[in-house]
Structures are given as C-alpha cells and as structure tokens.
C-alpha cells in the first residue's frame, strides 16, 4: 500500500491514480511538442536541401540504427511484461524485467556511442566543426546538426529513462509494488514507451531514405 502521506488529500488511491495518469499524459504531450520543434526544423531543411540530405543520409550506419531500434522495442516489451507481472502480484519478476529493460537501454547508449565515435573520426560534426569530405558542406552540415540534436536529445531521454527503470526495478524487487499499488511502475513504463515511440520517428527520418 502507498504511504499515508501520499494519499493525504486524495481520499482514495483510485482518485490519486487517475490524476497521476492524467498528469503523465499531459507531460508526454509536452515531450512530444519539445521534439516537434526539431522535427519541424528537419522537415523544413529537408525540403530546402533534398539532395544534400539524401546524400548525408546514405552515409548513416543503417545496421547500427536498426540494431538500436530492435533493442528499444525489445526493452519496451520487457517493460510491458513487467507491468503485467507487478499487477499479477509477482513484483520480483517485475523488478527483474525492469532491470533487464534498463540494461537494454544502456546497450542502446553504447551503440549510439560507437556511432558517434565513427562520425567524429570521419568529421561528420555539427555546424562549424563539419569537415566530412564525402558529402559537400552546404545542407549536409545542417543534416548533421539535426542528427546530433535529435539523437542527442533522445539519448538524454534514454539516460533519464534508464535511471527511472533502475530505481523502479530495485524497488519492485524489494516488494514495494503489487496489484494494489502499481502506479509508479505503470507511469515509468509509459515514459519508457514514449522514449521508444520517439525513436520510431527519429530512426526512419535519419537512417532510411
């Protein structure tokens, strides 16, 4: 059961849960709009420099991007299973699944790091630092700027998500959640699905032509 201090002005856990869900959905909407600015910039510059964007896109490492997509989608499935396990009174299993999902998130970040290292070696850097000889600068440097902004901002969200999942996993394994009180796990799961969904938009526009 949740501590009394938390339910304080609510009266019932149901009312509290409803508010928590609504708050999370609104927060998710703001996150989507935060990325919307970057997606808009991408759309505008892709229409201004179509050739440069296509050429720059062809130099992306599709294999690593696809691997990352696979990792994130898998971790999302693990989180969904974890929520199911906690609701089904198996918080130990739920905790293990959450920690496994967090681990996949860490692997995702590592793969992203490998990609970044390649780009840095080749000179595919944002703005002024651009010295990638394979694609001419005009337009392509903007592609790389947006690439770093989109993936970097997403990676920041992955990092936050990994910490959230780790804390939830440890607490769940310790038996803090159960069928009557699963809200934190459910909300953490929603956040992780958001991170996943944003990647499902970032991946095709950056990696697939």
């Amino acid at each position, binding site marked *: 059961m949740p501590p009394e201090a938390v339910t*304080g*002005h609510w009266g019932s856990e149901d*009312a509290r849960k*409803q*508010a928590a869900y*609504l*708050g999370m959905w*609104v*927060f998710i*909407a*703001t*996150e989507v*709009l*935060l*990325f*919307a*600015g*970057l997606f*808009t*910039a991408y759309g*505008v*510059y892709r229409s*201004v*420099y179509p050739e440069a964007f296509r050429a720059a896109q062809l130099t992306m490492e599709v294999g690593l991007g696809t691997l990352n997509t696979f990792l994130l989608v898998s971790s999302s499935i693990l989180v969904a299973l974890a929520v199911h396990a906690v609701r089904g009174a198996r918080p130990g299993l739920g905790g293990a699944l959450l920690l496994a999902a967090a681990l996949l998130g860490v692997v995702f970040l590592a793969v992203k790091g490998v990609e970044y290292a390649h780009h840095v070696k080749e000179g595919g850097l*944002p*703005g*002024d*630092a651009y010295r990638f000889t394979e694609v001419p600068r*005009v*337009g392509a*440097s*903007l592609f790389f*700027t*947006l690439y770093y*902004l989109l993936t970097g901002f997403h990676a920041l969200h992955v990092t936050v998500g990994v910490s959230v999942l780790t804390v939830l996993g440890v607490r769940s394994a310790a038996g803090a959640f159960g069928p009557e009180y699963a809200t934190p796990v459910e909300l953490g799961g929603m956040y992780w699905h958001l991170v996943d969904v944003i990647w499902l938009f970032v991946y095709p526009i950056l990696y697939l032509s």
Partner: protein
Amino acid sequence: MSPPAAESYLSDGRTLWSWLTTHDHKRIGVMFLGLTLFFFLVGGLFALALRIELLTPGRTIMGHLAYNRMFTLHGVTMVWLFMIPAIPSAFGNFLVPLMIGARDVAFPRLNLASVYLYVLGASVTLWGMFEGGADTGWTFYTPYSTTTGTAVLPVLVGVFIIGFSTILTGLNFIATVHTLRAPGLTWMKVPLFVWAIYGTAIIQVLATPVLGMVLLLVALERVVGAGIFDPARGGDPILFQHLFWFYSHPAVYIMVLPSMGVISEAVSAFSRKNAFSYRMIVYSTLGIAFVGFFTWGHHMFASGQSTFGSGAFGAMSMLVAIFTAIKIFSWLGTLYRGSIAIESPLIYTLGFMFFLFFGGMIGVAYATTSLNLHWHDTYSVVAHFHFIMVGATVMAFLAALHYWFPKMFGRCFPAKLANGAAVLIIFGFIATFVPQFLLGNLGMPRRYADYPPHFQSLHVASTAGASLLAFGFVAIAFYLAWSLRHGAVAGDNPWGSEGFEWRSASPPPTHNFHVTPEYPTGPHEYAREEVPHAA
C-alpha cells in the same frame, strides 16, 4: 469553536523553513505573489529609466548600448518573470483548489518544484543581467541574437528554466481541475476563473515546450555554431520567427485569459448578479485558447511570407476579436441592471474592459496586412501590446490583488485610498500609451534610444504618464503593506460575494475546508432580481 488564528494557513508554522518546504498551494501562491511583485518592481524600474532616457532627444541618462540592454531586460522581466506567472501561478495556485472544493492541487510537490524552478530561472536571468545583459529585445531575433557579443546565453537558459516552471504549473492545474473537483461540482458549475486558468494551462502545456526547444537551438547556435538559424551556414532566421511566435503569440493569451477570468469573477461579485451567459464565456475561453495557436504569422507580415499566408493569419487573428467580444458583451450584460458596488476591484475591472476593448480593436487593425505594414516596428505596436499586456493584464492583476487580498491575508485595506490609486493608475496608463500610438503613426520606430526633436512633446507626455503610474504603484505598495498588519479584520466574506472560494474562512485553514462544501447551485448565483427590495 477553535480559535481561528491558530487555524489559518499563515499561522501553521511561522519559520522560514516551514515556508520553503511547504506543500500547501496557498503558501506557494503567496510565494509566487511575492516573487512576481518583486520582478514587477524590477521591470518597472527599467521602464522608468527608459522613459527618462527618451525625455530628450540625444543622450539623456544612458548610452545606446545601455538603452538596448535595458529595454531587453525590461521585456524579459515583465513577460517571463511577471506577466506569465503572475495570475496563474500566484492567484491560480491560491484559488483554484478553494474554488473547486479541493484540499490541495493534484501534485503538491511538483507545485513546490515549480517555485524553485522559477527562482532558479530568474536567478540565471539576473546573473545574465549583471554579466552585461542581452541587447536583443525580448524576442531574441536571429541572426542578431546568435552574433551579438552581449550575454544572451544566460538569459536564454534562464527563460528556458522558467518555461519548465510554467509547464509544471499548467500540468498541475489540468490534473487538479479534472480529478479534484468536489462531488457535485460538474464542469458547468466550475467558476469562470477556474475555466480561465484551465484554458491557460492548456496553452502553457502545448506552447511552452516549443519555446524551450527554440531557445535551446539559439543557445547551441551561439556555443557550437549549429547553423540552424544562420543564413551564412545554410540555415534560415525566419524559421526562428515561426517557432518563436508559435509560442509567443499564444503566450499573449497566457497573460490575458487568466485576466479575463479575474474580471468575470469581479464583475459578478460587484454587480451582485449571476454571470450573464456563463456558457458563452466558457466556450469563448476555449475558443481563444484554440485559435491562439493559428495566429503566429501575423507577426511576420513584413518578413516576406506569401500573400496568402498573411491573409490567412490575418483572418485567424481577427477571430480572436470575436471571442473577446463575446466576453465583453457578457460582462456588460452582467453589469446591466446589476446592484453595482464601486469598490477598487470594480474600478480596475472597468479599466480592464476599456483597455481590452481599445487595444483589441486596434489589434484587429494590425491584423490587416496593409495597415500593419504602415505601423510595423513603430511605437504604435509598442502602444498596442502595452494596452493589452500592461493595460489589460496589469489592471486584472490589480483587480485580483484587491479583490482577494482579504481572502489571502484576512485584512481589509483603506477603500478610499485604493479607489484613488485605481483612478490614478488608469489615467496614468492612458497618458503613457496614447501618445505612443500617435508617435508610431508619425513614424517613430520602436527600440530607438534617440529621435528627431519634433517627437519630443509626445515623448514628454508619455514619460509624464509613466510617472503618474509610478506614483500609483508606490501608493498601492504602501497601503497594502500597511494593511497586512494594521488593516481592519476582514471576516470570512467582506465583499458579500457568492464565489465558491469565499466558502472557507479568510484566511483559509491549512486544508481549506473542515467539511467539504456542497454545490447545489451553479457558480456566481446571486439572489434573483425579481426578489422585492427591502425598502
């Protein structure tokens, strides 16, 4: 009966620590009130300095760079540190739970976090001011803002952080209104102020993230040369304007919608009448919140956008006037044959209606491309948005401050002094900003520290008006501060208002209600006119 003094939220813990760690929405509202008033003072001092500089052509008290920094910080302070948080964060926090019969907001800890984010953002911005200050104007237009050598970065980061405070406050209100209304309080019984805050919260939540991203992009542009808005690197400064105004035009409604909520409450309370066409006020609130997102392009008539684009944005902007007119007619309908009590909140309300009507009608003229091109970037634009944002918003802020002062602190203020100050302030506004309309129409550009001598008489008139305003504000600060300790004890409902917030004690106890009130009738329900008079 237990002693009321020990039960008020003000006496529940008197240490500084008990305030800094409070989860009580009322204390958080009072903290926001203090903070926003402080920044209103800071922004107002900047404004006075600007007006003094413009008293004579050529240099009066400061150089051109100092002038540019000063009007930038005047704008930044007033927009982000005062007008956007003032009514929602201060009065919204205090009143929304009281009005809907809740014991607190949905997420009290998040609410406290939004205070700290505001303080952090404000500190970063202030630090930027001391580091030299930005000279871009509060709009941070690129490419100038990415190339100027002044301290733009801390101001950008500060505003970014304040944006998070705004988002958290809005998120909290949405969840509160949805989930914490007392049993029996249906949507169509929710007081109009709560509706206004709800509409505002939607705009805050949807628009602010885009502002956050665009400020971050400008910051990155300065730090690593990202190139997004820099034509020299293939980027486009117009994209900045699109993204910036996508937030900043709706932000005008973040400032005006809560004001309209205050006015709806005050009109009803001081004419002792049911709000006329309650439903239309509600729908027009939501209408403004919606249409506000399709008007940003009217800031860009002179940017070379297509004629079709200008026409479409012009037409969408004019729609706002229709929703606003619905509200103004509703207020007039409420006043009509009401039993009107001339108290200071009502005087500010009448001022608000005048400024909103006058400034709003001129807004319709600005939404017309041909007229806009004549007035573009002149003082007349300055006068227009000051009429709406300062005239209307500050009027409503002062109306709220006077109307709910007894609720918040349990004390009354000297009524005659307050009425006098209200009249002084209304005339001060008119004297300050009407000359600026004339200046703009004659061609005086905005943001200039210098001007040819034939503009001087109008500038002197404007500065004279600004000093009247300053006197008015000093008077208000003086008598309200005095009343905090020495004012007459107000009692629970000194105005005799039927607003739901007056159903708890004034000042309210920590959890607002000992027994959750019941809501058999709608909001603002006063005795029917048909009831015969006692005389």
